């Protein structure tokens, strides 16, 4: 326990010595790596994703996070697909569109000069649109799934205007629902943080 307390205390002191973080908006371009059942369905690395996060400071360093994103996965597989219309074989062009809508809390540690580090957890749901094209037919299975989204990031101030370049990472996990297996993927973003100008101390 002592080993954990000291680093936390150090981070707190570092944060208190820096400028106060403020509410801001983050817009990022995302890559994603599917895991487990999601990887079984679409095994390709996704280079098509985006996230919009609104971070509202509730008290010093403690933020309410509202998050919306989109991650597109795709894959090509040969095999037999079991559908309500029978067993269908052929080259399967698989698509998975994940649209997570989350909310949660995060601690933001100001690092000075518009830079910051943050970590938090979001909860909510995501709409998963699963589409398989086989031959001239298309099969789809879509639904909302509840999940969690722990995340962290680091931003580097680009000047006094409050804009910063940031990098973040998320673990996205959504529980099984209505027979659709649990979905899991890691996503990594690079983007711009707007409106995070340091407050002036009075």
């Amino acid at each position: 326990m002592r080993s954990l307390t000291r680093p936390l205390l150090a981070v707190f002191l570092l944060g208190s010595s820096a400028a106060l973080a403020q509410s801001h908006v983050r817009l990022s371009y995302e890559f994603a790596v599917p895991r487990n059942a999601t990887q079984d369905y679409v095994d390709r690395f996704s280079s098509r994703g985006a996230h919009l996060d609104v971070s509202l400071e509730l008290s010093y360093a403690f933020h309410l996070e509202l998050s919306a994103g989109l991650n597109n996965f795709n894959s090509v597989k040969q095999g037999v697909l079991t559908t309500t219309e029978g067993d269908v074989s052929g080259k399967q062009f698989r698509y998975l569109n994940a649209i997570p809508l989350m909310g949660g809390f995060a601690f933001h540690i100001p690092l000075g000069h518009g830079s910051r580090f943050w970590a938090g957890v979001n909860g909510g749901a995501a709409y998963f649109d699963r589409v398989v094209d086989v031959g001239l037919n298309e099969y789809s299975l879509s639904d909302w799934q509840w999940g969690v989204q722990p995340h962290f990031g680091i931003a580097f101030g680009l000047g006094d205007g409050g804009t910063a370049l940031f990098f973040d990472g998320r673990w996205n996990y959504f529980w099984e629902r209505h027979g659709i297996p649990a979905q899991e993927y890691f996503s990594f973003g690079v983007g711009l943080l707007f409106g995070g100008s340091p407050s002036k101390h009075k």
Partner: protein
Amino acid sequence: MGKVAWAAMVLFAACYPGGAETVEDLDSVTTQHDASASFATLRTYALPGTIQEVASANGQPLAMDHSYDAQILARVAANLDAIGLHRVDPATVTPDVDVLVTFTATRYTEYTSYSYCDLWPGWSGFDGYDDSWGVYYPYASTSVTVLDAGSLRIEMLDQRTANTSTKQLTAIWNASVDGVLAGDNESIVQRIEKGIDQSFAQSPYL
């Protein structure tokens, strides 16, 4: 900053993955079966010597080249033999199942028209015109998408459970080998044969 956002959006949109790249990519085989049927007790089958043409309810029916009937039927028979069934002459022996093979070839045509005012909203070239205006073509021309598709269907009708009161034979198994009719006949027949093999391969209960 806005330019960066737009560039990211364009990059994002440009990466949408493609689908089928060859005609073979659009080939598919669908099989269905009666889960309550007793496939293990099947011993004999009868197979007609021709493939019947069936017109699709939609689209324009296309004629079939019957010069490949024997080759296709031989492939079906070979697969039936491979699962342990024996071909019999229905004129002398009542088979356990009748295996029927049909083919449907259809041309699907889709005509596309545009609402030009919606495509160029606010363009000064359309000043004085509103959505109630259209474009008149004094010749038979428009954007047309044409697709020729074919389906070879194999059905297995159970003679053992023929219901004389309702006069029904139960189709305990069927397979549909579907694809786009493109390329020469030889290549199409090769794809059909591959599909026939696949239909049996994905039906391990037979």
